[in-house]
């Protein structure tokens, strides 16, 4: 595996905080150049030049952070391409500063952290809904579903991401802990499952729809015709 492949693999860990999808599969990484000395230059292009600066910053900063963990990588440059606050954000990222460094006096980093956390909780709900629906579709009863443990979860991307999110949110995720939890970490009771799932499905629809709009807009931006059908649902 060469450095560029490892760089792209590392970038696939960076998620759009609002959509909970890797920036690589969303098509946001438009260029990834590695010099013979191991210096890396990444260009990120978002669906519109006006995408929210807070989320834009988080993706750029996260991209830089995952690359710093690769020992073979030298200098790292992550830049937002054609974004209306790109200059400010690029400069702050290059200096290794937080969001307040990009927009002094206009924001604070705590608010950004709580916004990220809010979306991590939504993402956990949405991913769990998918796993849970699959189990119910396979014939499991609500009692059986809520009795499942982390160890019982299938080895699929949704389950792996759930555990990652639980880790980030400080929700216990050892093998014996409940497979499904409310956004605050409490286990779900069987009698609440249907109602919880109704709400969880809406959260998932919301995330999916946003992702769909972003993909369409990105496509319009790159001058292609808009996709007509979403891949899966």
């Amino acid at each position, binding site marked *: 595996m060469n450095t560029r492949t490892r760089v792209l693999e590392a970038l696939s860990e960076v998620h759009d905080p*609002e959509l909970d999808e890797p920036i690589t599969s969303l098509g946001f990484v438009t260029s990834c150049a590695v010099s013979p000395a191991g210096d890396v230059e990444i260009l990120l292009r978002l669906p*519109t*030049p*006006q995408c929210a*600066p*807070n989320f834009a910053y988080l993706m750029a900063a996260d991209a830089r952070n995952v690359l710093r963990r690769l020992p073979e990588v030298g200098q790292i440059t992550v830049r937002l391409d054609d974004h*209306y606050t790109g200059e400010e954000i690029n400069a702050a990222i290059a200096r290794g500063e937080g*969001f307040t460094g990009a*927009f002094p006096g*206009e*924001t*604070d980093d705590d*608010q*950004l952290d709580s*916004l990220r956390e*809010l979306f991590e909780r*939504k993402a956990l709900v949405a991913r769990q809904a998918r796993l849970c629906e699959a189990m119910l579709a396979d014939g499991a009863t609500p009692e059986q579903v809520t009795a499942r443990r982390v160890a019982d979860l299938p080895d699929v991307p949704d389950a792996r991401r759930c555990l990652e999110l639980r880790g980030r949110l400080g929700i216990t995720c050892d093998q014996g802990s409940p497979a499904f939890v409310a956004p605050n970490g409490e286990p779900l009771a069987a009698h609440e499952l249907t109602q919880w799932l*109704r*709400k969880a*499905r*809406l*959260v998932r*629809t*919301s995330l*999916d*729809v*946003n992702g*769909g*709009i972003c993909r*369409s*807009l990105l496509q*319009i*931006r790159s001058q292609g*015709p*808009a*996709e*007509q*059908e*979403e891949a899966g*649902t």
Partner: protein
Amino acid sequence: MYSHNGDSFFVVDGHVHFWDASPANWVTGQEQYAKGWIECFHAYMGLGPEETHWPIEKFQKYSEEDFVKDVFEDGYVDVGIFQSTYLKEWYREGFNTLEKNAELVEKYPDRLIANGRWDPREGDAGLKQLEEDAERYNLKGVKLYTAEWYQGSRGWSLKSPESQRFLEKCQELGITNIHVHKGPTIWPLDKDAFDVSDVDYVATNFPELNFIVEHVGLPRIEDFCFMATQEPNVYAGLAVVIGGLMHARPRFFAKVMGELLFWVGEDKMLWASDYAIWEPRWQVEGFVDWTSPEDVEFSDYPRLTTDGKKKILGLNAAKLYGIDVPEELQLPDEAGTPAAREDAQLVDSA
């Protein structure tokens, strides 16, 4: 009016614009924002059918003839509601102000309604202006942008004490329809401009007023839905939902419609084209033809009947605005009352 397969629909477009975003109207020093704003809108137009796309020059500034043709003649719209959008920090004469909209209303008094606006940060002067506007233009509604810039401030909340004064004034002046923009926006940086909790708060405190959440809180539909089920006087403004999804993402569109029908109900959903982002014609035709997919994924969403479509396309808004609907375009009594407030509680207890 739109007639199709023996059914006739009274059409109220809850969100139309007649804007000027041409370079001549850009504020010096703010060109990047003025340009960025209209280009962002133009990208959204790309989500509609290709034959309805405009070149950016026309999109920046279109004529009165374009408006009349696209909305009234080709678009089936009986009555259009202007949602005034000022953005004077970026556009010298404003993006589409009440004054500008009122000029068109004067020419087509039975076909257009102009909504006003207010901003609590303008204090007493703003209250006075609202009184004057209400009298001059006979306001029945306002459009509020909680994320708008104003003298260094980058947004406000409906919960603020100043906002309460303006809402009391609305109640006093009979301005009963409060449209709140909770949808795609450009700034502010750190606050979540889509947060609908402030609507929740004022909907409870002002039960006489109707709160129409424009763009249903996209991209946070779930927060909007959970809130709307609790508040009988909260309505869903469908601008962007139909224009942005029905053509570009039909399956997602069906899911969003299914969720809105479940959580909010057909009595509380108001169609709007968001013209000139999208032309009304394809939206009206497509929506009347629309049926939810048959797959199991969609099986437990409420079904939308022709009567439900009649409510969403016009009868609900007509009720909120007191627009006279010709007898033959009204619903039979057994089809329920458009814009009925009870719907929220019914759904909630389901």
